[in-house]
């Protein structure tokens, strides 16, 4: 308060017009440039990820597998092993990694903005657990849903609805209640998954356990067929809604007084974020913390404006996932599940967040 007194000039300012002579710089160009740099970073990470692996391939050998696929190349003498490694294993895996990073980080940013809470993400809100239950059901009873993706999206939606409505008091989601509700819903769906595991036969059990553990080992072009259209279209819509998400994050009453319909916008955003989470979980299982860390890192770089946080978080998420996955498959002889790497790298970051931002969020 004392600062306010000193900072404010005494008396009223002169009778200036509303359109003052002062100029304000919003730094949009600088932020756009940073986003472009992040895009370059993702491309670089993708190149490194394609070149590295347990099977030693030189840059030229990798390039050769690209060259022979060009339509105008006649002497298509292809090394079958190299071609399979690059085109059936590494490339789809890199692309899935990028799309999963896009999806999880953007979903995290959207949940944080709509719930007005920078400490939530698909995993904390129980959406991942709900989606993994839906997908497990689809694995065990293939006739139940259209496919894995639909089951995952459906139960992800059930989970986020329970969390949303149970933590809403007097038209607001209290930060603590929101996270507690997420923990409860998460543990409920994990228990339901355990029942499914307990009652399933050996083959199905193996499939469920490996897939929930979270990793890109089975990533193939068939995953990309789902992931690519859904993730790209969804992020495009969310990006367009970026400015409105800023206004929504000020609270419902203010959003309405600024000309934004809060209920409708929130419904659309939560549906899109949950759709993305469901599709990602159905493809690669549960990968925690990416959706929490990346939006935060994007805000540190670009500020909290969602028009820049959305693409920034998505690109950072892709680069981070590629880094983690490359570590996962090259660190030791056999492969480490990706989710283990992201959790081990994420934990210290989250502890730091809790120490530095926890008070602001929980007001404690």
């Amino acid at each position, binding site marked *: 308060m004392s*600062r*306010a007194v000193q900072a*404010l000039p005494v008396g009223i*300012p002169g009778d200036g017009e*509303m359109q003052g002579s002062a100029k*304000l710089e919003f730094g949009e160009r600088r932020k756009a440039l940073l986003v472009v740099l992040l895009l370059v970073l993702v491309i670089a990470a993708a190149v490194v990820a394609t070149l590295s692996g347990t099977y030693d391939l030189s840059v030229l050998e990798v390039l050769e597998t690209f060259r022979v696929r060009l339509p105008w190349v006649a002497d298509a003498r292809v090394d079958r092993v190299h071609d399979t490694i690059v085109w059936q294993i590494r490339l789809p895996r890199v692309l899935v990694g990028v799309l999963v990073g896009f999806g999880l980080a953007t979903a995290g940013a959207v949940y*944080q903005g709509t719930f007005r809470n920078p400490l939530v993400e698909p995993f904390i809100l129980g959406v991942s657990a709900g989606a993994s239950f839906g997908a497990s059901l689809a694995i065990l009873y293939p006739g139940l849903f259209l496919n894995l993706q639909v089951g995952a999206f459906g139960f992800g939606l059930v989970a986020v609805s329970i969390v949303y409505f149970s933590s809403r008091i007097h038209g607001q989601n209290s930060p603590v209640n929101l996270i507690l509700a997420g923990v409860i819903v998460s543990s409920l769906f994990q228990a339901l998954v355990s029942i499914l595991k307990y009652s399933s036969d050996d083959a199905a059990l193996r499939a469920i356990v490996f897939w929930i553990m979270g990793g890109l080992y089975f990533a193939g072009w068939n995953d990309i067929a789902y992931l690519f259209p859904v993730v790209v279209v969804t992020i495009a819509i969310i990006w367009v809604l970026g400015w409105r998400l800023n206004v929504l994050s000020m609270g419902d009453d203010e959003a309405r007084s600024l*000309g934004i319909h809060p209920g409708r916008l929130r419904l659309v955003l939560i549906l899109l974020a949950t759709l993305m989470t469901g599709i990602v979980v159905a493809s690669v299982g549960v990968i925690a913390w990416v959706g929490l860390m990346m939006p935060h890192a994007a805000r540190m770089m670009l500020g909290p404006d969602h028009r820049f946080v959305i693409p920034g978080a998505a690109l950072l998420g892709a680069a981070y996932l590629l880094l983690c996955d490359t570590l996962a498959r090259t660190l030791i002889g056999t492969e480490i599940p990706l989710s283990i790497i992201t959790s081990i790298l994420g934990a210290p970051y989250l502890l730091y967040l809790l120490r530095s931002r926890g008070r602001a969020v929980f007001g404690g």
Partner: protein
Amino acid sequence: MTLRVQDLHFSYGPRPILEGISFEIERGTLNGLFGPNGSGKTTLFRCFLGLLRIEAGEIALCDHDISRLTVREKARLIGYVPQEHRPPFPYKVKEIVLMGRTPHMNGNFYYLGRNHGAAVAGALETLGILHLADERYDQLSGGQRQLVLIARAMAQQTPILILDEPTSALDFSNQIRIWQILRRLAGQGTTVIACSHDPNHLLWFADRVLALNRGRIVADGPPATVLGEPVLDSFYREACALKELDGTLVVVPRVVAESRVQGEPESHARGSDLVPSPPR
């Protein structure tokens, strides 16, 4: 008429909050809404903003029936200054004020034009807080945050501006500053409606005061008439007295006024109460 309210009714469940409110407000006036806690002031504001669905009656903003306006159209007619608060994200002051331009941003994509930046700078300049433009809003003092929210509503450039206790978080000099700014906005043609718990502010600055009690308008007119002792007595159970000080009307607590009349300095009276009586 910029604002017309006709026979407005609202209730939360079985409990009626507003019962038959009617009034009209002219363009370019500064109007005070006055009433004790729970009198229905906030509910009335929320009806203006379209945050609550009215049960019966009619509200017209600039001759447009509020029930027929979209959220965006409403936001071009009426601006709102809430009580200050902290958002969950570290927005800068200029970004908060830019949000006031939202109803004027074109199309679905909300691209920003240069005119928005100028409106933001103009609003900040008018309030004398242009130097705060690059500060983080969540790290400002309560008074500064309140000024930023007023700047946001000014950047919205609406014909009607409503303020929910705009001076409650401010120190004395800033309170007076805000009322002077509101006076000036009214002079430039904006219709301002502010609720306040301080009858003096309304006495000194408002053109007109609407006194609200138990969901009804109990008095309406120039502040000196409305804020007479009958209204103050009925609101505050005879706690206040109206005095004239060199031609300026002042509402003072009756305990203070009466102790002065008896020529007994207040501090002395209070001090003597604290002296323990000698043991008998």
